[in-house]
């Protein structure tokens, strides 16, 4: 592989499982498969949006890449180095190059430290410059994020949510990283402030040549900021594609449902709503076969038994048996339209096995992952 084509970040088969311990001897009785085998790459200067609902593992995925939580398997290659193989001393030098901004600017900034102490901490750890040089870097980072230099002497509580998030971003960029994990960076902010912070992130990406992993449940912001988007469900990526491609031609039934569920102000943007039955099952007991099958209106016999492999068309990657069959019959646009019309018809795939809609199949209990309505395999 030539150097130009090598991605800045390459994640393959990443797994992060958390043990469930019970009893006197804290015996391990199970695993929460928060991240259960995901693969993606991000080229330098590009942004990958990672979307999904709460509990799907998107936050754990972001933290596993930085080893803020230890992955249990798989590989994370950053700038040609295997992050998982690094020892503490060398990991530290990598960490300077990969930073994270958290969702909650109230929780992520220590209220007992001045902004100066918060920003200087990382510079001291990484031995970046003497005291004058550090001050210069901190002032510059704050200015980049739209905060005056006087901010340094103040405490986080003196600022609004939007300003705190700017400070959190300044704390990340002061170390001159190449890559940022942005974990729901605008979700805790007021609507009129969100656009300001999104604009700031886009500006920083352009000026500093940053690469982002943008983790969010807000589909319209992800569409705006991302080059590529990955949709996560129950520890797995179900679909990955260039943003424009994914939003125009979603293939996976879950992606269709997710997009259709977003309420929109514009009538013409509103998609025909696909109401998914039930809740997301527990990641401690993921369903067999395709993990989405208990909620999927198009689920067939094969979906309950066989974990769908990836089908790749151009830059579009999808894990779905139905999508794979439709793609073998036509191009992505035709397949997307066909899946949309099947979903609009309320499920009922060609072979007529499963129909899962309406009141009767409302709740699918986590304890019975195979509870797929009246389907007869």
């Amino acid at each position: 592989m030539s150097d130009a084509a090598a991605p800045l970040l390459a994640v393959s088969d990443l797994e992060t499982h958390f043990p469930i311990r019970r009893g006197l001897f804290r015996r391990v009785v199970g695993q929460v498969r928060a991240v259960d085998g995901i693969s993606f790459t991000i080229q330098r200067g590009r942004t990958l949006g990672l979307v999904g609902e709460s509990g799907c593992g998107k936050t754990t995925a972001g933290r596993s890449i930085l080893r803020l939580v230890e992955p249990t398997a798989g590989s994370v290659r950053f700038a040609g180095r295997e992050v998982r193989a690094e020892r503490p001393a060398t990991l530290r030098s990598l960490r300077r190059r990969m930073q994270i901004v958290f969702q909650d600017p109230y929780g992520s900034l220590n209220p007992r430290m001045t902004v100066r102490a918060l920003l200087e901490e990382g510079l001291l750890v990484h031995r970046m410059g003497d005291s004058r040089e550090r001050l210069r870097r901190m002032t510059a980072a704050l200015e980049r994020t739209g905060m005056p230099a006087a901010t340094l002497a103040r405490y986080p509580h003196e600022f609004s949510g939007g300003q705190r998030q700017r400070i959190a971003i300044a704390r990340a960029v002061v170390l001159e990283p190449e890559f940022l994990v942005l974990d729901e960076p605008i979700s805790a902010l007021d609507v009129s402030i969100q656009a300001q912070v999104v604009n700031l992130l886009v500006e920083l990406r352009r000026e500093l040549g940053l690469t982002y992993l943008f983790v969010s449940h807000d589909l319209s912001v992800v569409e705006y900021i991302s080059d590529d988007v990955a949709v996560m469900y129950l520890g797995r990526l179900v679909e990955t594609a260039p943003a424009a491609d994914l939003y125009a031609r979603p293939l996976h039934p879950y992606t269709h449902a997710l997009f259709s569920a977003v309420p929109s102000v514009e009538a013409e943007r509103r998609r025909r709503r696909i109401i998914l039955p039930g809740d997301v099952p527990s990641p401690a007991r993921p369903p067999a076969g395709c993990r989405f099958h208990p909620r999927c209106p198009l689920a067939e016999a094969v979906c309950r038994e066989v974990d769908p492999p990836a089908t790749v068309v151009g830059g579009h990657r999808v894990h779905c048996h139905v999508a794979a069959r439709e793609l073998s019959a036509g191009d992505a646009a035709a397949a997307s339209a066909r899946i949309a019309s099947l979903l609009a018809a309320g499920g009922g795939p060609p072979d007529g096995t499963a129909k899962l809609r309406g009141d009767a199949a409302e709740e699918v209990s986590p304890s019975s992952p195979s509870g797929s309505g009246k389907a007869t395999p």
Partner: protein
Amino acid sequence: MPLLEIRNLVTAFHTPAGRVPAVDGVSLSIERGTTLGLVGESGCGKSVTAMSVLGLVASPGRIEAGQILLDRDGRSIDLVGLPERQLRTIRGGRIGMIFQEPMTSLNPVFTVGNQVTEAVRLHQKVSRQAARARALELLRLVRIADPERRLDEYPHQLSGGMRQRVVIAMALACEPDLLIADEPTTALDVTIQAQVLELLADLRQRLGMAILLITHDLGVVAETCDEVAVMYAGRIVERAAAASLFARPLHPYTIGLLAARPEHRRAAADPLAAIPGMVPQPRDFPAGCRFHPRCPFAREPRCTAELPSLRELEPGHLVRCHYAGDLGDPATVPAEARAE
């Protein structure tokens, strides 16, 4: 006569730092069987408005002025100043309520059945058995599958979406005329939010109940409400039928909120039309029009000094802005308002 009419409501908090007018002259009305969306950002006073209707404003807060008129079988009663005993029969009886986080409304140490039957028996003199039967019926109404089993479960055994359904079931126990829903889906995922919104719309139709939906999400309002009131800094700045508001927003704040949505932009080279400045907090609401420090259309001296009145610019479309309908070109926004 509307089901609920709020007239010039003022609710203020008396703190050591001084008087904080969270709601400062709000007037609203809701017709039977309709949904009114009350939209705004944190600190705008939308939740305090709801708490005032419910008589649940906690000390040091106090309703200082205004009327909250509820139509009760053709007779209008003012909820402001009503004795707590009478208020209690209305709250949960005539007016049901659900909040953002279902766990604030559910007691973790009692079963779902205990809590739903309690809601029934607080307002209706029925036997335990009859109350349990009613609870079962309510759980079916909010489409909880396997309701017999759920009655004996504890809240922690339910998912977030199911908990919110239980809270809705409790709110519906006495077939209220009005349901106040304060950010009912904000804590839920989009696919679950879609389920709950659909449920609320269906219940409204079946039970003929009116809904006051408090939210910050314009998309939710556009899809579920008949009427909309936009709140900013303690006041209503715009009120209209939902279709009219979204087709032709008149207040610069509403225009700004709609323009800032990323759906408006395709390429990241094109920055979002952000509203500059900060959301003001009740202790330091600006003089004049409260939006003027962030308004690209603000003009001296009128906007900075004179409070605009809520005027009817088009039939049924009210707006609190001196220049609405004739905003002119955006002026240069003052530098201090730009950096948030």
